């Protein structure tokens, strides 16, 4: 098979295998080939145990893979030292988690500013920038609140601000609406759509077809292999319209 790596290609996976060792080794990913271009809004869909989260973790350099190649922005991501991996994650990837993963003893601004701290950005500058991002997500008044004083939707918006602050090449969202009610789910998805509209590449992992249908491309994963990739251009026509999310 011949691949042409163009500038537009952001993520390129070739024959990715991943096995979790154990008494009964678990072969989770059985040869994934995938290409994601810049500016795409992609969802990875599958039932639990299908390997979709593992795939996202590999994309996010949070986990390693056993076989194959993963190119992120034309860089081979393989056998990286933890230091190098941390640097790549910091500069290229923004994460949004189901459980928000905010640091509980830091307020919103400090949470958002943390990635810049690891880039060595000065305190004043990074806090100012964090405030700007919080403002963009409509959380200016909540800037100095602790996570436990905020609602789920607010927390997720803080997390999005934190993911965006380093201007990452790609935004990875693992069940971003999984812990939210349907109203806030719609809010969060519309934020992601807006971000995509302004050129941000986004990959969402979900098991909800309602969420997947909001994206431009749905990658269906089953038993560790990609079953099919469908372009969902006519979102408005999908059975799950904006108002009709299944929760």
């Amino acid at each position: 098979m011949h691949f042409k790596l163009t500038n537009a290609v952001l993520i390129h996976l070739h024959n990715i295998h991943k096995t979790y060792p154990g008494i009964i080794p678990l072969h989770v990913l059985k040869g994934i080939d995938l290409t994601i271009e810049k500016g795409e809004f992609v969802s990875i869909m599958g039932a639990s145990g299908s390997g979709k989260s593992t795939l996202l973790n590999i994309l996010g350099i949070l986990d390693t893979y056993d076989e194959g190649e993963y190119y992120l922005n034309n860089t081979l991501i393989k056998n990286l030292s933890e230091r190098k991996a941390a640097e790549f994650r910091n500069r290229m990837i923004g994460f949004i988690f189901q459980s928000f993963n905010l640091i509980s003893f830091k307020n919103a601004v400090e949470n958002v500013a943390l990635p810049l701290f690891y880039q060595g950005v000065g305190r004043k500058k990074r806090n100012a920038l964090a405030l700007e991002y919080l403002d963009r997500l409509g959380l200016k008044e909540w800037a100095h609140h602790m996570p436990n004083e905020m609602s789920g939707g607010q927390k997720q918006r803080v997390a999005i601000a934190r993911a965006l602050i380093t201007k990452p090449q790609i935004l990875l969202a693992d069940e971003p609406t999984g812990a939210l009610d349907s109203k806030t789910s719609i809010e969060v998805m519309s934020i992601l759509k807006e971000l995509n509209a302004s050129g941000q590449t986004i990959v969402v992992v979900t098991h909800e077809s309602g969420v997947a249908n909001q994206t431009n491309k749905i990658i269906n994963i089953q038993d560790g292999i990609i079953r099919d990739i469908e372009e969902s251009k006519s979102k408005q026509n999908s059975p799950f319209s904006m108002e009709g999310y299944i929760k």
Partner: protein
Amino acid sequence: MIDLFQEIYTTVRQNKLRTALTGFAVAWGIFILIFLLGAGNGILNAFKKSSSQFNANSISIQAGWTSVATQGFQRGRQIKFKEEDIELLSDELKEYLYNGSGEIRISSPYSTLKDFVEGNVYGVYPSFQDNEVVQLIRGRFINEKDGVEKRKVVVIHEDNVPILFGTDEVIGNQLIINESLFTVIGVYKGSDFKDSRDVYVPLQTLKTIYNKDEVTTITFLLNDIKSKEESEALEKEIKTVLAKKHKFDPNDWSAAWIWNRLMSYLQMQKAENVINTAIWIIGIFTLLSGIVGVSNIMLITVKERTREFGIRKAIGASPFSILRLVVVESIIITTFFGYLGMFAGIAATEWLDRTMGEKIMDAGAFSRTVFLDPSVDIKIAIQATLTLIIAGTIAGFVPARRAVRIKPIEALNAR
């Protein structure tokens, strides 16, 4: 750097109780160590002071009464030593004994026009000064010439100066002993083992006045005797030599009494070592419990914070930055509380010094310092604190390395 401290400050504030408990373990460890060392030093210093008041290297022999019948003599015969016995011993055992001296003790009052003291007059050799560590604060001690010329000169105790003369200018003044006029040539310093009633005159002078050819005590300095065994062997030799001369059984324990200060010195030294070792062992184990406390709590902390470290890693924290976070926290806690403990420990020893800095046990005839200057060398205090800080660093480092090694995805899924 400020950011790092800010981070640590937040986590510390977040876990006040945990931090306080860790801190207490550390502070307590160092406090106990310093306090124990200080108190121990108080005892050891008192020991040292006592041992500086006599010559640890000396041996005294006193004549007694026979308890065994031998060579046709009945038991219960009084043995009397003479000056020639000093020479005999010096000759026979010259490898081990030197600076021989003898003394005669006579109980007698002595007086001035002002007052009198009911005391003891010692006829001594010049070598007595070295053997018994007589420190002069004024004038001089008895010398060879005083003995040869049988001068009537006397050295008195400092405490008797005000009683007898009422002035410090006593050298050259007259003292009446048994109706003879003696000239004061020196004043000696009082100490724990010196009876203030004792005055010293030349042995020869006393012999002439009282017509008494006898020495109550013979004293020598020891040469080349270092162990208990050598010391015991020497005592036996001395007894053998004297037994032959005075015709008593060499195994008769009461015919000649030997007081070997080396033996008591060795025992004291042994006691000193035991005290010292005991203090250090207790101190180090207390310190160790502090260290274990720190490492335990750091271990729990790291476990509790695994998820947080996972989040930090996901957003780009390098392994080093995580390691630094934990280790620096550990260092700060141990340094801060270690310093606090050190400070409290030093304050406590200072307090000890103020309240019972010089505890003197009065046993009537003599008094002994049992506690003196309880303080710790600041160097040792700092060293102990530094040790604790280093140990605290290691205690933080081990769990921190574990936290760093765990994969970010595993850390994120922790708990």
